[in-house]
């Protein structure tokens, strides 16, 4: 071998060594850095917006769904005739041209012009092929039943950073579950930015929001809202509400309140109507609390249905206050059945005194009074019961007939439902199951909160309440042939240290059929003007709704 051949061979080996060492440097030592650099050149990141979960009624109909909408954005740096584009967009988007003009004058590459634009408007603008104007797909809440069950649903607004956020009702309570998780897609793109089919495309899983299936029956909710609205108008009330619950499971069947709002255009309403008064507003229940106090006294065996009231012959004076019956009629030695039938305040003072403060507080607590019911809606309130040391003899007496004690309608409905459910108080639930994005369904099981009274006491109390409906003040409006247990409540409204003599909160609470209740319902009218009495206002609404419910459930008359 000649020296020239050897020399050439060594030079080639040396060159190969240099190449190998350089490759080693790039591919091993600088691997991560160069991979990231290359990846940034051939890949693009695309934001994926999760779809908010739907809210469906018990018949699987979405009362809150999503509709495709668009965000119109502009790239001011490439806009040619800004004035013309501003005027065109202003025309199509029906917005002030000065605000669009201000946006397109910004020295940025991306400015949002308007969001929530419908498909037709997007197509109309798209046909104009305006350079520098683009669209981004979004989802906007859509309510097929308009304002139906608005107080149950709540609404979707924006948080501080402009991201969708649920407020009030289910949207607020289950916001994290409904909203899902925003995610990104990393795509391998060609030189023109088009995606390339490649195994290298990294696509992370987008997590849409979970959907909620409610126990709310859409037909009943519709019916209740229509009848409540009509009732408020008929009886000249300032507002009203109705709550219907399945006493066996605690599932809410319907819940309505007026005045209400439309979740789609919540901005157009006064903020006061956003909160659900059935779970947020407190009131003195008046006589509709009597069944709970009487049940407590029966359960504690301090009275029996035949116990005679020895203080019922006239007004009762306690702690300097004279307590009267609602109609100033008095019945000496009346029994407990008639105390409830006549809604006798002095009779309930007798019962409260027999029960005593300790047992009164204990039973009311077991009935859930003074505590949150933990209903799955945002905005529940519950004023606490007064501490034992602050109960004076007059407080005990007035609590017996539901005055001087504040609670929310849901507390009353929940406590009363224990009488209908063999003494067991269930947790009120609006959502019956959650449907996860992967299709998995999680059922929400009913939960017993407490057992304030025995089954035997509940049975006795049911008979007393059936008697109250059949022979009480509201008997004129009762349903013939059905055994319905219920009680009127005409509560005075406290104003500046005394009770307003002309204004009341009229309520009716009851359940049907009495022997196997399918629903327990509370109707409340605030300041009815045609009559201040519940027997002439809220009771007719109760029976009007109950009639349709019994027909809807296919329950024939039993008598």
């Amino acid at each position, binding site marked *: 071998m000649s020296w020239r051949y050897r020399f050439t061979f060594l030079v080639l080996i040396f060159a190969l060594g240099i190449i190998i060492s350089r490759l080693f440097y790039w591919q091993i030592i600088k691997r991560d850095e160069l991979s990231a650099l290359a990846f940034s050149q051939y890949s693009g990141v695309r934001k994926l917006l999760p779809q908010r979960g739907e809210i469906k009624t018990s018949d699987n*109909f*979405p009362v809150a*769904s*999503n*509709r*495709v909408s668009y965000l119109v954005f502009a790239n001011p740096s490439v806009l040619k005739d800004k004035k013309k584009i501003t005027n065109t967009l202003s025309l199509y988007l029906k917005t002030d041209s000065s605000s669009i003009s201000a946006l397109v004058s910004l020295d940025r590459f991306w400015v949002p012009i308007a969001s929530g634009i419908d*498909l037709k408007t997007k197509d109309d603008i798209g046909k104009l092929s305006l350079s520098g104007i683009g669209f981004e*797909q979004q989802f906007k809440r*859509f309510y*097929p*039943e*308009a304002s*139906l069950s608005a107080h149950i649903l709540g609404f979707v607004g924006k948080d501080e950073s402009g991201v969708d956020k649920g407020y009030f009702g289910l949207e607020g309570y289950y916001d994290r579950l409904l909203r899902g998780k925003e995610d990104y897609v990393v795509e391998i*793109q*060609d030189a*023109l930015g*088009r*995606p*390339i*089919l*490649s195994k290298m495309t990294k696509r992370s899983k987008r997590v849409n929001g979970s959907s909620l299936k409610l126990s709310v029956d*859409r*037909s009943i909710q*519709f019916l209740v809202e229509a009848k409540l609205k009509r009732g408020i108008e008929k009886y000249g009330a300032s507002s009203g509400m109705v709550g219907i619950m399945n006493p066996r499971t605690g599932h809410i069947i319907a819940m309505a309140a007026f005045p209400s709002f439309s979740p789609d255009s919540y901005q157009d309403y006064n903020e006061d109507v956003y909160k659900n008064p059935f779970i947020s507003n407190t009131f003195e229940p008046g006589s509709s609390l009597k069944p709970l106090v009487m049940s407590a006294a029966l359960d504690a065996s301090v009275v029996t249905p035949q116990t005679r009231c020895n203080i019922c012959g006239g007004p009762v004076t306690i702690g300097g206050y004279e307590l009267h019956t609602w109609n100033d009629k008095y019945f000496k030695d009346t029994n407990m059945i008639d105390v409830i039938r006549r809604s006798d305040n002095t009779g309930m003072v007798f019962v409260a005194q027999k029960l005593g403060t300790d047992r009164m507080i204990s039973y009311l607590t077991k009935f859930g009074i003074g505590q949150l019911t933990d209903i799955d809606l945002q905005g529940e309130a519950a004023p606490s019961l007064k501490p034992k040391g602050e109960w004076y003899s007059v407080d005990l007496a007035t609590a017996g007939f539901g005055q001087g004690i504040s609670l929310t309608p849901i507390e009353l409905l929940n406590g009363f439902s224990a009488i209908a459910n063999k003494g067991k108080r269930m947790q009120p639930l609006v959502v019956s199951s959650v449907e996860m994005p992967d299709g998995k369904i999680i059922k929400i099981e009913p939960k017993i909160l407490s057992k304030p009274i025995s089954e035997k006491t509940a049975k006795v109390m049911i008979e007393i309440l059936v008697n109250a409906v059949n022979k009480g003040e509201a008997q004129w409006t009762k349903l013939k042939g059905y055994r319905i247990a219920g009680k009127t409540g005409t509560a005075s409204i406290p104003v500046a240290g005394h009770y307003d003599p002309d204004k009341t909160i009229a309520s009716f609470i009851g359940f049907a059929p009495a022997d196997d209740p399918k629903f327990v319902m509370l109707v409340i009218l605030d300041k009815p003007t045609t009559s201040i009495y519940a027997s002439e206002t809220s009771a007719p609404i109760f029976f009007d709704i109950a009639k349709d419910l019994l*027909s809807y459930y296919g329950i*024939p*008359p039993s008598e």
Partner: protein
Amino acid sequence: MKRHKTTITYALFLIIVLLSIIQAVVSNRLSTSGIVLGKIEGEIRFYKTENSSLAEEYFLVSSLNNIASRAADLGFAREKSPLVLTNSDLVLTPLSGVAVRQ
């Protein structure tokens, strides 16, 4: 020696040509797959939007608000006193299984 060099030159030339063809084919496929993918994604987006619009229309038409107003327009009225069949009204005869009104 000269013949050996010629063989190597031909071999290198063939390898270069072959690699060039492979590169052209792969590049061509990759560049057109982007167009195809873009088209498919566009179609998916179109059908999803179409489905969403149809679902929206369906929900609006089947909403109780719409049904109630349509029913009222068509002159449907509520039955004030529905007919109720109580259990005692019907008797099932054991053999024929025919319901007989008493």
